[in-house]
């Protein structure tokens, strides 16, 4: 047992559901007790999704505990198949079902007999993998299933496209700024003269999967999700893969150069150097911005970076290499992939931290006292407590990290967004300091002067207690209304009773 207040990566089934619900016409059925369908709330709220989340539950209750699921799971799969006619139903195990040890694979086989669509059992172990690993595995499992199926019926398409083309792997629902990144990557590919053969899983249909081998190569923008699929396609079809995250000016260039060499090796004589140079120096603002005198102020400022592998590594490199900021500590919660992270960042930071315990991160931050933090929502809250500004660069995130406006983190526009984020975090910190040195805004007194401070009315102790329970931002209004109420009625003593009578009378 472990005492835990907070976690960075969710449980395994969340990863599977993120993959399933990213595809078009794929439905997930969780084998779980009532209340475990919290994923639907997150998707509906965070992504402000207009459609019903294609996830339902085959409820595990007392009866299931006593007698096993029996026909229930099969019935639920067949019912969903009839109701919504999805192409694929993914039966998703949860922590509960993994201890029940029912033969879910067998239910899938039986349901397949009656279902028109395909049925698949997501093979993830709740106690061994987390959300990100499960997502990576499920994506590979679905791709493999449809490649093999296409092979069997003989309509696998292995003929390469005429022009260079790419599969973008690993763009998912509830992924940090994934939608915007995907748009930016498509733009970048268009600029490079590369056709996008498929984007999976986001918005893809499983029908498209048999066409994956047509692409000239696979691009895996995120370290956490898509790697296994790309490796599978490499083994099966010798498809080259580019797994450099194009985040920041330098890494974007490195990614493009890698694409160039992949295409060159397949006989396409592209040369992207001119494009890179044009983008870096003139089209994008990031390189110039970091060179401008304003950014000199950031030189040697201390920062702490924490997040998932992809974003924490890229951010560390941007801060250290592109902006001259001292990254005192770079950390990740992807401990299962810690070697990769250490390898990526060790030359760009003073110290590397691998942990999924948020208190360790918080303690490190408190000890270092950096000028700014770049982390998850948890680090943002740590920053709030310690009065250190924080830019959010990785999941887990809140609703405000699913902006409506265009905010990619990848590609050249992404680089612009990142420098803005960095700069704004630091200037806010400076402003704060100046305010502190000069004792705050000098206009404070005038603004907060309360209208009802000098009244002859007498608040009793219980009245005051109740008043203090009113949320701060309306307390003033409630106080004024209550006093007005008391004055109108000639009361001199304001008790709790008077306060609530006033509330009822004026509705405040």
């Amino acid at each position, binding site marked *: *047992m*472990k*005492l*835990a*207040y*907070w*976690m960075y990566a*969710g*449980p395994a*089934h*969340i990863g599977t559901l993120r993959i399933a619900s990213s595809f078009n016409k794929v439905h997930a059925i969780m084998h*779980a*007790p*009532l*209340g*475990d*369908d*919290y994923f*639907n*709330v997150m998707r*509906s*709220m965070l992504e*402000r*999704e*207009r*459609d*019903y989340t294609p996830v*339902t*539950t085959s*409820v*595990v*209750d*007392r009866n299931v*505990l006593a007698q096993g699921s029996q026909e229930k799971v099969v019935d*639920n799969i067949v019912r969903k198949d009839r*109701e919504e006619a999805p192409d694929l139903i993914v039966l998703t195990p949860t*922590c*509960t079902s993994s*201890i*029940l040890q029912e033969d879910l694979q067998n239910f899938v086989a039986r349901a397949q007999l009656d279902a028109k669509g395909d049925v698949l059992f997501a093979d993830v172990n*709740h*106690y061994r993998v*987390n959300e990100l690993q499960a997502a990576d595995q499920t994506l590979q499992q679905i791709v493999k299933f449809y490649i093999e199926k296409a092979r069997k019926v003989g309509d696998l398409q292995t003929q390469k496209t005429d022009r260079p083309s790419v599969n973008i792997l690993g763009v998912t629902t509830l992924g940090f700024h994934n939608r915007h990144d995907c748009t930016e990557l498509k733009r970048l590919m268009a600029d490079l003269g590369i056709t996008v053969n498929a984007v999976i899983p986001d918005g893809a249909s499983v029908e498209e999967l048999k066409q994956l081998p047509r692409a000239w190569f696979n691009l895996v923008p995120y370290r956490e999700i898509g790697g296994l699929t790309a490796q599978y396609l490499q083994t099966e079809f010798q498809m080259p893969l580019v797994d450099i995250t194009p985040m920041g000016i330098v890494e974007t260039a490195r990614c493009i150069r890698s694409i160039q060499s992949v295409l060159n090796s397949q006989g396409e004589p592209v040369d992207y150097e001119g494009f890179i140079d044009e983008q870096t120096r003139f089209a994008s603002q990031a390189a110039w911005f970091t060179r401008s005198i304003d950014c000199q102020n950031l030189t040697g400022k201390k920062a702490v970076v924490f997040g998932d592998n992809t974003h924490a590594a890229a951010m560390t490199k941007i801060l250290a290499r592109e902006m001259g900021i001292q990254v005192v500590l770079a950390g990740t919660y992807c401990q299962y992939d810690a070697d990769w992270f250490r390898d990526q960042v060790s030359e760009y930071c003073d110290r590397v931290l691998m942990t999924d315990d948020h208190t360790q991160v918080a303690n490190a931050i408190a000890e270092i006292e950096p000028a700014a933090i770049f982390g998850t929502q*948890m680090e943002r*809250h740590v920053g*709030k407590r310690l009065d250190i500004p924080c830019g959010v660069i990785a999941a887990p995130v*809140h609703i405000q990290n699913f902006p409506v406006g265009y905010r990619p983190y990848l590609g050249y526009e992404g680089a612009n967004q990142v420098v803005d984020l960095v700069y704004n975090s630091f200037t806010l910190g400076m402003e704060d300091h100046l305010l502190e040195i000069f004792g705050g805004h000098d206009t404070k007194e005038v603004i907060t002067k309360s209208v009802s401070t000098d009244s002859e009315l007498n608040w009793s*102790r*219980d009245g005051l*207690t*109740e008043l203090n*329970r*009113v949320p701060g931002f309306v307390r003033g209004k409630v106080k004024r209304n209550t006093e007005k109420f008391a004055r109108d009625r000639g009361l001199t003593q304001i008790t*709790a*009773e008077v306060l*609530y009578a006033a*509330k*009822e*009378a004026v*509705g405040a």
Partner: protein
Amino acid sequence: MTATIEPNTPALQFDCETGNYHTFCPISCVAWLYQKIEDSFFLVIGTKTCGYFLQNAMGVMIFAEPRYAMAELEEGDISAQLNDYAELKRLCEDIKRDRNPSVIVWIGTCTTEIIKMDLEGIAPKLEAEIGIPIVVARANGLDYAFTQGEDTVLAAMVQRCPDATQQPPAAVDDRNAIQKLLNFGKKKEEIQEDEAGYVNHQPLVLFGSVPDPIVTQLTLELKRQGIKLAGWLPAKRYTELPALAEGYYASGVNPFLSRTATAFMRRRKCKLIGAPFPIGPDGTRAWIEKICAVLGIEPQGLAEREAQIWQSVEDYVQLIRGKSIFFMGDNLLEVSMARFLIRCGATVPEIGIPYMDKRYQGAELDLLTKTCQEMGVELPRIVEKPDNYNQIQRIYNLQPDLVITGMAHANPLEARGINTKWSVEFTFAQIHGFGSTRDILELVTRPLRRNGALKELGWDKLVRETTSV
């Protein structure tokens, strides 16, 4: 007087569906209970799934150093390679050292049920060893929905209430005495109690966790009738649990507390006052009247008071009059809310509800029937353990003016031009007593006011016609 036992009026139609609906896991009760019981610590013994739910459902509260935590079970716990007792002891000693609470509440989850972890057996031993009371509540998704979590916790606490016939109230151990000393002089916020003005009646204890301002208001409300409360479960501190004795009266303020009610009656031999719940001015009045009737008191000035409240919220009631409201069902407040809204002039075609205790909610169901008759509207269909998919088909057919639903369905319904209100807000908002009438109506009418304001724009449906459910 115990709960109404005679069968409910046959007029109400009760259905039961598949139970495939969205609701919160009952462990969510820790979110409001740890804030209500100030000296408690809630330990949820479960998996990452439970933790993930809590962390996401609680939003920002999680960052305020909450007095709750997960005892996250690992593979070794599941396969019994680790000893439950030793593991729990280690964690509870940590909690004692860091927080020193007056009570640790263990929340059993689905996982502890399935692996049959004997929490009730371990707790007394550990309690004796570390010297902190340990209350066990099995608030799991196998058996319960959302607010029923509070029911399991309060039912467990009923047994911890001191015995009023012994004095002084139960021999408290040293640590609690120290705790009391520490609390001395700190926020003793009970309403000034003068004995004058109270009628002599059998002691009455209320149960149900409501925010402190609601406690004050309902206490004052009863005081006006000369009724003095002997206590409230839960109190602000665990060390202040009300004393109970055989023959005491108890009454619930929330519709989801049937296990707690049973515990009062069976375990502590209290008499239950089965009344409608004090939600809405009609409910509040009926609640007070029922309590008065049982205690033999003639209620004073309630009719005027109710009329006054209705008059003061007429502007909001106007928005509701004639509207149809559909409850998908997820928090067990549905019947009381529907009854209140029908009184406001709405029609309610369907009341979805996770679980219906016709005995505990008997008086509320009777008031619902009576309200429908008086308002001249059809009786709603009450659907226990609803099926969300079927409900959505019914919603499409009925096209109600407002759907009260969980967050999983709210945005998709809005995108299809159907007004929705998140049901969860009613759980966290102050909805009890005369004084909260405006607050409930404020919530209920908010989507109507917002969407009314945007109506001119002609953007009602924001999904393409081809996307069907």
